[in-house]
Structure formats: C-alpha cells, structure tokens
C-alpha cells in the first residue's frame, strides 16, 4: 500500500536504496567479489580477503532481512537527529545478512524487545527534516513471529 509522503533523502548517498513504494523495505548497497564470491557492506573496490584482493567487484543489493548477532540500547540521543523518538536513546545491533556480511546499524525498539538470533528487517527512519524533505537513515526492526 502506498501513502503520500514527503521526499526521503538518504543521510549519505550510496549506502541504501529508497524504494518508490514507501511500504517496501530498503536494501543495503554492497559489493560482491566476482572472483571469490565474498560480499561486503558498504561498497568497496577491492576484495578484502588477503588470499584474494581481486579488483573484479560489482555492486549488489543486500538484505533486507538478517539475523541479530548482538544488540544494545544506547542511553544517549542519536547524534544529528531531531526526531523525538531518538532523544531518549536508541537501539544498536550487529545483523548478519544472508549474503554473509555482518552490519552494525541502529535498531528500532527497546532493550527488552531484542534477542540474539531473531530475524530483523531493514527500514528507513527519519533523522530530521530538511526543507520539504526527510533526511533518512536505515535501521533494522525485529520481525514479529508469524508476520
């Protein structure tokens, strides 16, 4: 379902997609090594594996779902945010993507809502407004069982 929303602008281009349909989750923008198959986030030009170091790399989309490896809740306002939700603190997690990379990003929710091993899905979250646009970051939200 699509709803009318303000334009969404990434805090920094090149890290995640902004789907035209606001009901769809974003995908992370990563890299795949064409020689060894390793995936990376964020994007990089040269494979990092010491035994590979190939320059044959290409852009890929990663996620949007992953598994929670570890989590915390930071009791400080999120830097650079004017979103009231971020004033009291914010979750942070390490999420293992099915393609391989582990990513470290904010989480939606509170301390008690996270557990290691749970499935999460990427979403866009407004950090602040800029003119008529929303400046957005990507974060992960626990996927409720059965959803």
């Amino acid at each position, binding site marked *: 379902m699509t709803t009318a929303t303000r334009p969404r602008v990434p805090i920094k281009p090149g890290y995640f997609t902004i789907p035209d349909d606001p009901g769809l989750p974003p995908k992370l923008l990563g890299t795949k090594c064409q020689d060894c198959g390793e995936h990376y986030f964020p994007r990089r030009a040269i494979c990092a594996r010491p035994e590979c170091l190939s320059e044959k790399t290409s852009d890929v989309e990663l996620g949007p779902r992953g598994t929670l490896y570890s989590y915390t809740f930071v009791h400080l306002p999120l830097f650079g945010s004017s979103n009231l939700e971020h004033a009291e603190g914010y979750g*942070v997690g390490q999420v293992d993507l099915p393609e391989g990379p582990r990513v470290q990003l904010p989480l939606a929710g509170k301390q008690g809502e996270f557990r290691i091993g749970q499935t999460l899905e990427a979403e866009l979250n407004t950090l602040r407004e800029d003119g008529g646009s929303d400046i957005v970051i990507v974060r992960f939200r626990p996927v409720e069982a059965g959803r």
Partner: protein
Amino acid sequence: MRDVAVLGVGMYRFGMYYDVSNATMAREAGMAALRDAGLSFRDVNAAYVGHIFAQVMSGVRVMKEFGLTGIPVQRIENASATGSAAFREACLQVAAGHADVVMVLGFDKMTTMIQQSTQGTAPENMEDAILPAGFFALWATRRMHERGMKAEHLAKIAAKNFNNGALNPMAQRQADTFITPEKVLGARMVAWPLTTMMSCPMGDGAACAIVGRADLAKKLRPDRPVVRVTASDLQSEKYARGHLFMGPVVGPAQMTIDTSKNVYEEAGVGPSDLDLVQVHDAFAIEELEYYELLGLCKVGEAEKCIEQGDFERDGRVAVSTDGGLIARGHPGGPTGLAQIWETTLQLRGEAGKRQVENARIGLCHMMGGGSVCVIHILQRD
C-alpha cells in the same frame, strides 16, 4: 628488541583542564621524564609526538617548547594506540642504531574536542550512530549470550580499576571511598549493560617516555634497576568473516592473539611469567576479553578468574594497576605512554601504595580504532 631501555618517564596528571594548553602539559610531562632519566634535552637525538586531535605542525611545534636543537621530529597517530605506536617507533629507532636517546611525547585535550564538536554542523555520516560505548556494549551482550557473563563481572573489573586508581596520584578519577561492584552497577547507564563507571572518562593530559641504549640506563642512574623493552609488535587486522567495515571498529579477537604471540616469542616469556599487565580497558568488557586473548587465562574462564580475584593487585597477575583507562583516564595520545610510565615505575619498585610485590615483567597492550593492536613487554634486569 635487544638493548633498548626506558631511561625516564613523566606525566601530567590526566584530568579536565579548560585553562591548560597542550604545550604546557606536554612540556611538563617531557621535562619530568628528562629529570627522571637524569638527562637534558640537549641529549635527545630524536623525538616522536603522539597526538590524536591534531592540527598541522602540532608535532614539531610542541617540541619547540624544549628548545630548537635540530633533531628529527615526527608525529604519529594511531587512534587510542597513538602513544604506544609512537613508543614503538622510538624503540625501533634506538634498536636500529640511529639514535641513543629518543623522546616519545603524547598529549591530548578532549575538552577542546568537545567544544569544537558542538560548534560544527550536524553530522552527515552513517557511522555517527554507533558510539564506542555502543560498539563495546555489543561485545558484552554477545559474551552474555555465549558465555553466561553477567554485568556483575564487568562491575567487579571496574571497581578494581577505580580502587587501583585511588592509589595513583596521576589518575583522573580519584574515588574517595572504596568502590564496590554494586556502586558501579548503580551508576548511570550509557549503553546496556555498560554504566558510566564501566567506561573511561573524557579528559586531558600528557605523558612522556625517554628510551635509549640500555647501557646508558645503568650509567645515568646506577641507583636503580634497568627497565628493558624486550618486545614490541604492532599489527593491523586481518580480514575474517564477521568483520565490520562501518562504525567504530576496534579489535577483532585474532589481532590481539596474533600480536601477543609475537611479543611472547620475541621476549622469550609466556603469559604465566607476567607480573603485571596494562590493557586497553576503555570499557570493562574489553579488559575481560583481553584476559583471554592475551593468554592470562583460558578461553571461557575469564568470569571464573574474575570471581577468584586473579587480576587484583595482589592476585595471580595484576591488571590495570594504575586504574586503567577507566580510572586513570584516556585522553588519547598520551594513554599508551601512561601505561609505560606505570609499568616502568612498577618494575623499578617505585609505584608506592599500588606496588606489585617483586614485579619483574610487565606487558602493555593498547588497541587503536580502525583498527590496530600494539603490545610491548618491559623487563627489569
């Protein structure tokens, strides 16, 4: 690392100094180290400056405080491991025979950094979401899941370090009462399960070490034991699955394991030979992990060893004897040199109330974001 010794050490007490400049702190720490060595700046052949939050020329300019003698001066930066990395360069310089006496000077003012950061525009970086406290809290949560660690174990480490720091006149945090784990647990939460008392403070300070040919040490100060640098290693990380490319990245486990193996081999000692150890305990969970990664205890046994008091000042091996980063403070550039200051005093038997009995071998370990691991072993003759 044969024939390199610590000739002198000096510090400007870590703290919050809004009215004291970097140049003043650096000069006082440097002059203290020269006096300790029994040397004049005229005797210094080269200098390495460790300074993180640096402007251009800040290395060579601060050295002018001591006089203009034409010596080579270089600034080294490697995040939290800056002072340790600079110390290593000085030791290599002496070992290579290029210099007999080298000054290593670390200083930083996080209070200035805080003032500057609030004047800037809003951050535009995805990485700004993850603070170091958040990053290390993720280690803690995972450890709880894998090994059954409890916040109480971290509180016991932090309480130990606060109580060690109370015996160190150069420590930034000076507890006026005995600190219990309960008090640490009751402090304000920063990033669950890490409280403010399980985290290092912001601060300013300076520290200096003079390194030189070991035979000079005996000539200059025949009244005290020679403290040799018997091993030095610095490694950056190797790629492994689970590596994080975004956010604060400090210390994959294997990097500390590999670096410590190298220094144990170079010095010809093992972890069981160590009398005292300084680690990068910016957050208490780090110290716990490094017990295992440095081989001070077996993997999976850190919690049990903490409960037994193995790493207390009078325990099996004393860790963070000067209060560690948590109580002694962690201004940045000088931190690794504060570890050298503490270990040198301990090995000379000059550590006062916090003296580890008959200390002969000490290890200094620092992690730098990015990331790197630097380890030195110091031994009394």
